[in-house]
């Protein structure tokens, strides 16, 4: 007899038939019917209408039938809460059954029925079951407390179930202990501060005893729980480690990894010079290697964890690089991970072997894998200086294969090698140039162009090469266009005589024919730089570049420490802290490695060392609602030295000059915003923390918000700065700021939310159609009530009326009329803000007097209350001060 027949019932009147069968007198028939119902349920048919009939079958002493009915109940009780109550009696009765298996079954199932009314009835039976004489019932009841807590946490606390659960830690049966630990661990995750588990040396001792006796799964629960304990001194840490190390020989890889987690955490507490420390490190290596002989999925989990362990303590596996060599038929996810670890372990001692392997991989089939292998060769060159030469020649060999993607990947890494060892391998440039035509990926083209530009003086036909790229300039990606622009400017500065035409061509392509603002900006900058001061241009463009660092993709140390606390878990697989992928309250509590106890710390949550400690505390965010309420009151971290801005990329320069530095404020994260043609450039410096940005919120008086998410995909290193250009629109929420052009920004990253503010040049809000009709102007100007008018003196401005007018026009401040009164120039001007507000002004300029008088009024069809006078004048100030230069 097989069960598959239940999957194929005749469609017509199916429910009706089942109903009849469920009410059949014969027990066997009823059982068959329930099986059919469950089969229908599995394939997704709605059989909820049979609820009363199925529940009727519950009153049976046949355990098999009972289990089937319970299975049905778990699925449908929620959708039929009133019906479900019918089952309660039966459950309560079963909880008193002489057979422990039935008692356990009843309490287990009841916990799975998430109906409030039923939950109330669950309390009494559960209380009894927690004290049941049979361990099987107790271990089931322990899990049931966690279930109940998930449904109604308050009730669990009120009923004192947490205390009963804690009592079970001292139970004589190891499995009861393990389940109690699992339940308590889960519950305490949603109460991070309550010391629910109450881990004290006595309890730890009980756990360690149970560890030797319980099932493999129980061992995992206990080890995971142990890893949250903070031993009070090194002696305690060592004694726990001694009792945990035997677990490294367990056949279950999860037991091994959880044991590794405990040991990795407690290693922090052991003195580094002790014998035990060394022995322990040695003991960790073989089990980690053994994990790689498991099934591929476990290998994958192990490799992701080893990747962390290798970064934290490279000494553990430094001798074992061979086991990470890729096997031909490893699944691709295992191959890619192994490759990553190989590079991390590469050193002078093993580089020859590693390189031979990498070369082998570069001929494989999977494109991603091959690319990564080629990239790895480049990284070896950068990491192990002695091997650089060999790596370069390997890369050249690979280029000779002419396999398109191999060549392209190789050229990209060779550029990085040039950045690391300048003036060393330029002899290979000729070979690279041969492959110019086959490059079709932006990355590779940009890399090649960079190389040509950087070494233009050694490449005879550099101008020809670059010119060939110029032909299809507009079809190139932005990355290539920008690189090409810079490369040609470099070439021009190196060989000015022959390449004047070329540079002019590229500048005009970039500035006049392109609608990409980044490109235009960079073009203009170069143009101005070249036309005003070629010597400075040379200094700027051909300045010596900093060398690139050896390790590029290390996980930021504080994150790494946190992930070490999560070894074996999903967080360690994703390499992300739990709150990045877990919803709700679970996992929000951050874990830290313990620190060696000198004097402080009382066994609560330990605080990690380093900058996070400082960053951690003050930034508790009140709540989502008033997230921005106390913006700026939070002064984060110690003041930081602002990285030098002088060598900045060209994109971010304020066209009117000089304004940028004043916008930089000494905050951990510094934003400067400058505007050109409706585009705001955001410059970010991260001082200490490596960041991956998650979101980005703007708040200002003009409703500025970014229209696209922040395009940062790779984490930033400490002190790394990055320029991002972000299209903005003014449709966001409006909030009045003081001063008006203040922009408040919140940036969320993996560590926390950071707030800061900066000033936006107000003139970016002036729209292009701000020129008022003469007649309208006259009428409006007259109609502006006196209290809305203000007068200002603008000092030290040595420009005549026409130049002022021209400069202002560039900023969308339009001169409507001009007249000469008593030797003074009177300019009547209008401008319109993005929010539709008109501002009118009268500017009086006396020739020879550097101080202008400004009279400003705002139009009537707007409410003026929102704008304080000072703001309006600042509009002009900003502009006019710019004019002085």
């Amino acid at each position, binding site marked *: 007899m*097989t*069960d*598959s027949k239940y999957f194929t019932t005749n469609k017509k009147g199916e429910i009706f038939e089942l109903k009849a069968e469920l009410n059949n007198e014969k027990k066997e028939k009823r059982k068959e019917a329930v*099986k059919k119902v*469950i*089969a229908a349920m*599995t*394939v997704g048919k709605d059989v909820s209408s049979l609820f009363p009939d199925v529940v009727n079958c519950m009153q049976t*002493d046949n*355990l098999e039938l009972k*289990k089937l009915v*319970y*299975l049905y109940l778990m699925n449908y009780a929620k959708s039929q809460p009133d019906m479900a109550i019918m089952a309660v009696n039966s459950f309560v009765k079963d909880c008193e059954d*002489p*057979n422990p*298996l039935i008692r356990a079954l009843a309490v287990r199932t009841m916990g799975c029925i*998430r109906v409030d009314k039923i939950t109330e009835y669950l309390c009494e039976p559960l209380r009894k079951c927690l004290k049941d004489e049979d*361990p*099987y019932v107790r*271990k089931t009841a322990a*899990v049931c407390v*966690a279930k109940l807590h*998930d449904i109604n946490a308050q009730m669990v606390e009120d009923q004192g179930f947490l205390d009963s659960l804690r009592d079970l830690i001292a139970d004589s049966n*190891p*499995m009861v202990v393990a389940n109690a630990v699992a339940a308590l661990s889960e519950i305490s995750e949603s109460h991070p501060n309550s010391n629910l588990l109450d881990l004290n040396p006595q309890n730890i001792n009980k756990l360690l005893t149970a560890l*030797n*006796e319980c*099932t*493999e*799964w129980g061992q995992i629960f206990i080890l*995971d729980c142990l890893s949250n304990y903070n031993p009070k001194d090194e002696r305690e840490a060592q004694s726990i480690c001694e*009792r945990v190390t*035997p677990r490294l020989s*367990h*056949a*279950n890889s*999860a037991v091994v990894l*959880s044991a590794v987690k405990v040991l990795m955490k407690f290693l922090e507490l052991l003195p580094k010079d002790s014998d035990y420390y060394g022995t322990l490190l040695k003991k960790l290596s073989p089990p980690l*290697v*053994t994990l790689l002989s498991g099934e591929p*999925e*476990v290998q*994958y*989990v192990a490799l992701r964890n080893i990747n962390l362990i290798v970064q934290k303590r490279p000494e553990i596996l430094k001798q074992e690089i061979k086991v990470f*060599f890729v*096997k*031909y038929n490893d699944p691709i*996810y295992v191959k890619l991970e192994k490759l990553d670890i190989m590079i991390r372990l590469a050193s002078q001692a093993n580089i020859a072997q590693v390189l031979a392997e990498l070369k*082998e991989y570069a*001929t494989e089939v999977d494109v991603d894998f091959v690319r990564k292998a080629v990239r790895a060769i480049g990284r070896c060159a950068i990491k192990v200086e002695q091997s650089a030469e060999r790596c370069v020649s390997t890369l050249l060999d690979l280029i000779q294969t*002419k*396999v398109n993607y191999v060549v392209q990947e190789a050229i990209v890494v060779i550029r990085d090698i040039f950045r690391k060892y300048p003036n060393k391998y330029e002899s290979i440039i000729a070979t690279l140039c041969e492959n110019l035509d086959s490059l079709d990926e932006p990355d590779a083209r940009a890399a090649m162009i960079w190389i040509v530009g950087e070494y233009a003086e050694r490449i005879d036909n550099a101008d020809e090469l670059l010119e060939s790229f110029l032909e299809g300039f507009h079809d190139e990606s932005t990355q290539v266009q920008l690189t090409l622009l810079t490369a040609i400017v470099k070439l021009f500065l190196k060989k000015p005589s022959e390449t004047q035409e070329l540079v002019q061509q590229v500048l005009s392509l970039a500035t006049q024919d392109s609608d990409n603002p980044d490109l235009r900006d960079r073009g203009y900058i170069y143009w101005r730089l070249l036309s005003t001061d070629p010597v400075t241009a040379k200094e700027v463009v051909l300045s010596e570049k900093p060398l690139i660092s050896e390790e590029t993709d290390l996980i930021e140390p504080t994150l790494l420490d946190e992930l070490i606390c999560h070894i*074996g878990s*999903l*967080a*360690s*697989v994703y390499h992300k802290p*739990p709150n990045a992928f877990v*919803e709700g309250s679970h*996992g929000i509590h951050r874990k830290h490695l313990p620190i060696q106890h000198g004097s402080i710390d009382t066994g609560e949550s330990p605080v990690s060392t380093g900058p996070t400690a400082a960053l951690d505390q003050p930034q508790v965010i009140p709540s989502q609602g008033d997230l921005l309420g106390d913006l700026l009151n939070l002064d984060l971290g110690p003041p930081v030295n602002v990285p030098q801005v002088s060598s900045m990329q060209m994109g971010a320069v304020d066209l009117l000059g000089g304004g940028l530095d004043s916008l930089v404020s000494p905050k951990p994260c510094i934003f400067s915003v400058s505007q050109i043609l409706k585009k705001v450039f955001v410059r970010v410096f991260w001082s200490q923390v490596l960041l991956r940005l998650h979101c980005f919120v703007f708040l200002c008086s003009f409703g500025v918000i970014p229209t696209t998410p922040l395009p940062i995909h790779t984490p930033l290193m400490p002190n790394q700065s990055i320029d991002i250009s972000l299209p903005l629109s003014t449709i966001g929420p409006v909030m009045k700021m003081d001063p008006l052009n203040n922009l408040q920004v919140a940036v969320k990253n993996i560590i926390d939310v950071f707030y800061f503010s900066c000033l936006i040049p107000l003139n970016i809000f002036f729209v292009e159609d701000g020129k008022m009709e003469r007649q309208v102007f006259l009428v409006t100007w007259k109609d502006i009530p006196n209290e809305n008018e203000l007068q200002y003196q603008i000092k030290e401005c040595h420009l005549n009326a026409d130049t002022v007018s021209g400069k202002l026009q560039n900023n969308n401040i339009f001169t409507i009329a001009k007249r000469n009164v008593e030797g003074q120039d009177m300019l009547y001007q209008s401008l319109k803000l993005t929010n539709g507000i008109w501002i009118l002004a009268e500017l009086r300029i006396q020739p020879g007097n550097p101080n202008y008088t400004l009279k400003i009024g705002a139009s009537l069809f707007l409410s003026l209350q929102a704008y304080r006078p000072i703001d309006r004048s600042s509009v002009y100030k900003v502009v006019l001060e710019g004019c002085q230069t």
Partner: protein
Amino acid sequence: MIGGLFIYNHKGEVLISRVYRDDIGRNAVDAFRVNVIHARQQVRSPVTNIARTSFFHVKRSNIWLAAVTKQNVNAAMVFEFLYKMCDVMTAYFGKISEENIKNNFVLIYELLDEILDFGYPQNSETGALKTFITQQGIKSQHHTKEEQSQITSQVTGQIGWRREGIKYRRNELFLDVLESVNLLMSPQGQVLSAHVSGRVVMKSYLSGMPECKFGMNDKIVIDKQGKGGTADDAGKSELGGSGKQSIAIDDCTFHQCVRLSKFDSERSISFIPPDGEYELMRYRTTKDIILPFRVIPLVREVGRTKLEVKVVIKSNFKPSLLAQKIEVRIPTPLNTSGVQVICMKGKAKYKASENAIVWKIKRMAGMKESQISAEIELLPTNDKKKWARPPISMNFEVPFAPSGLKVRYLKVFEPKLNYSDHDVIKWVRYIGRSGIYETRC
């Protein structure tokens, strides 16, 4: 913890769906089907995160098993659990196939209810499960009260893997030392990596609750004894092991019946075995491995349309022993149009569908040599991509342990019952198989 468990057939139809946690919605079943089973690209990771829900999957023939969670679960545990689930199902109904799963779905639900509670794995030892799972098992209403409490104490107890009161007329045990030897060799014959992963599988038919002690030629133990001058010679000769040479074991893991703390402190392997067949230990060695075969490849490209391949295999073990099921797989390029093969021994065939020449030899004695040569004709292509030259792989079976492991003794003590170590009939067998045994060419 695990929020739910789904089993799909190859088309992505749900065969079993069991949700343990409220945070897993009904659409989770479909999300996995759409994003993983029906995904266009090859699966790039066994863990997939779809809309903050993580899916762990393993595949057994055509069947997908997926565990779902929204929490930061112990990932290794989830996979170990899925493997265990497969083991349990296999123990109950054999091969995991769509038909078998449909035939046993009620049983599977019952098992899932028992071995996973609220997503927490519980006792998953088949031996214990069989005592109280109602489907195809003993119906528990027939149990007396004593039997019931015996079941529960076994399921939750310290020795969850063995029940009391087992009786055999003949006490017998079988030990299989199964090794797979892995090799990666460069074309020049240099060993790039080699290791043996071995398993000791035990079949025990012993009465009562026997205490066993297992001994092998572990270098650490032998050295210790050597130093102490108390070499246990009695044990050495017992099972016919020569025991002269000892081996260095890199690492080993044990079945949960083995007392790990005792191994850690004394390096002795003592345990009460489960009844029937189980895997006592796994181990790994990398030093002084006997490589049963050496493959010497010679590939020559003659022009653009022809390849000449010559492969010599040499057996490297005692002439009195016989290797079996020898198979050498020589990959050929994708644009192969024809192959001519000559081999001295066995049969060789070009298999176009597998892009390889497969050379099979039934038996081969030690210290022998055999050779195959082939001419491969190629279609001219303008494909720039070079042929990747996959390594030549080899399969074989030899009647010895390539690691050099020897069983020194397995002692059985059952103080309560009336049989001694000498009454137990013991069998030992060594089988060495090829794992990934590859030579680059």
